[in-house]
């Protein structure tokens, strides 16, 4: 298996630790004037999301993780899996619940998402920052209200619930921020 030595460590490097893919977040070299050098490394386990710190003796090696970020179109879910397609090769991928968990309610069919593949299997899915959603349920608002005068909850087509201005009605298209889960504006 291919390896990386500590002198190749840098932010964003993907490697295997305890059989799971990890991503280096911070790499600090400790080099005493008259002693052995070490690398203080902070990394995120890409499966569990946990941040871990380890100190590697310089010269140590870690296995390369076959991890790539790719753009895939979200097709549909069958309840058990979420299906994606490469728009040039038409190759299909299925992601399990753990991979979509963070953004499950922000996946809109036919949108292009960033999918991280490990050994060609999706391990995380990130939808576009701005997604267009249809409001499926909300209380009727009062006419004449404008944004910024409070709000009300609205249920969207994926089941997500966001605070929207009072003038938004059922069936309207709105733009939301998928990272923060906040309403941005009406969609044109």
């Amino acid at each position, binding site marked *: 298996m291919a390896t990386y030595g500590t*002198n190749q460590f840098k932010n964003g490097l993907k490697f295997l630790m305890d059989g799971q893919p990890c991503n280096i977040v911070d790499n*600090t*070299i*400790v*080099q*005493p*004037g*008259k*002693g*052995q*050098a*070490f690398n*203080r490394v902070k990394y995120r386990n890409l499966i569990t999301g946990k941040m871990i*710190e*380890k*100190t*590697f*003796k310089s*010269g*140590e090696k870690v296995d390369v993780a076959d991890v790539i970020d790719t753009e895939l179109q979200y097709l549909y879910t069958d309840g058990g899996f979420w299906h994606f397609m490469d728009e040039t090769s038409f190759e299909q991928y299925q992601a399990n619940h753990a991979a979509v968990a963070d953004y499950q309610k922000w996946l809109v069919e036919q949108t292009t998402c960033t999918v991280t593949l490990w050994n060609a299997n999706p391990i995380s899915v990130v939808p576009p920052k701005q997604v267009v959603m249809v409001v499926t349920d909300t209380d009727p608002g009062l006419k004449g209200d404008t944004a910024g005068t409070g709000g009300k909850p609205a249920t969207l087509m994926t089941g997500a619930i966001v605070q929207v201005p009072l003038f938004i009605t059922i069936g309207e298209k709105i733009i939301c921020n998928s990272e923060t889960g906040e309403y941005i504006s009406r969609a044109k």
Partner: protein
Amino acid sequence: MNFWQVSASIQVLKNRADALAKIRAFFKQQKVTEVDAPILSSATVPDLHLDSLQTYLNLPSIGNDLVFYLHTSPEYSMKRLLCAGMGDIYYLGKVFRQGDLSPLHQPEFTMLEWYRLDYSLQQMMLETAKVVQLLLGELAIELISYQQAFADYANIENIHSASAKACKKYFLDKKTAEIVGVDKNDKNLWEQLILTEIIEPKLGNNCITCLYHYPAKDALLAKLSVDNSVAERFEIFVQQTEIANGYLELTDPQTYRQRFNESLQQRKEQGKSYTQLDHNLLTALEEQKLPKCSGVALGFDRLLMLAQKTNKIDEVIPFSILNN
């Protein structure tokens, strides 16, 4: 940032020039002579953890592609000058180290190194602290022995006799970041890790800490104490950063040869490049004798970083290696 641009601000570079002038004025006043030590040498340090840059010279009627090394410190040539009778001397200039790049390291950096005849280790520590104060102002000076630091900060009463297990245990108990790649019986490395990970963060906090009496095994080119128990060596820390390393200098040529050979053996065992011993130095030590003296090497850029309150070396030098 564009690559042609300077790394540091123009004001910092002017402060750098003032700092260099201040140091030169100090030594002039102390009657210590500046020496222009050569950067190129046909031999280099055998230290396990120091790697030299090398270059190839073509010299008419001598030969082509002759290997020369860029000095990692001016120590050997300065010691030859001391043997030749130069008296108190200092060097303030560039040195080079292979593979060094971090917020605290550049492969090319400025070193201040000086030697004082008949100075004890304590006198040398105090003079080094005085030079630090030239740039940092009247910081308090703290003297603490290596053994005492391990006792105070890591609860290891006698580090010199402690086992590898006792050192390793400290990391397990403290639940610090896991250490990868260190053999459980490698006491030297576990001991070094306690020093760098646990003790150093406690050193030089708003003061100048002189850590002295290193273990005999880490003597390098320092004399051993009269009972051979510890090395007459110190390091200076300010704001958790190591900035200087000094010795009561070893004078016995046989011991030089012996320690060089030990270092070469370690390099061989670790598969590192093998360098030949500096015979010019060894011959000078044998024929002329090194006068009794103490010496210290101080990282000028790091001292300036502290004066400028920055933690990035490229903010105090004109150009980082990455935009040269």
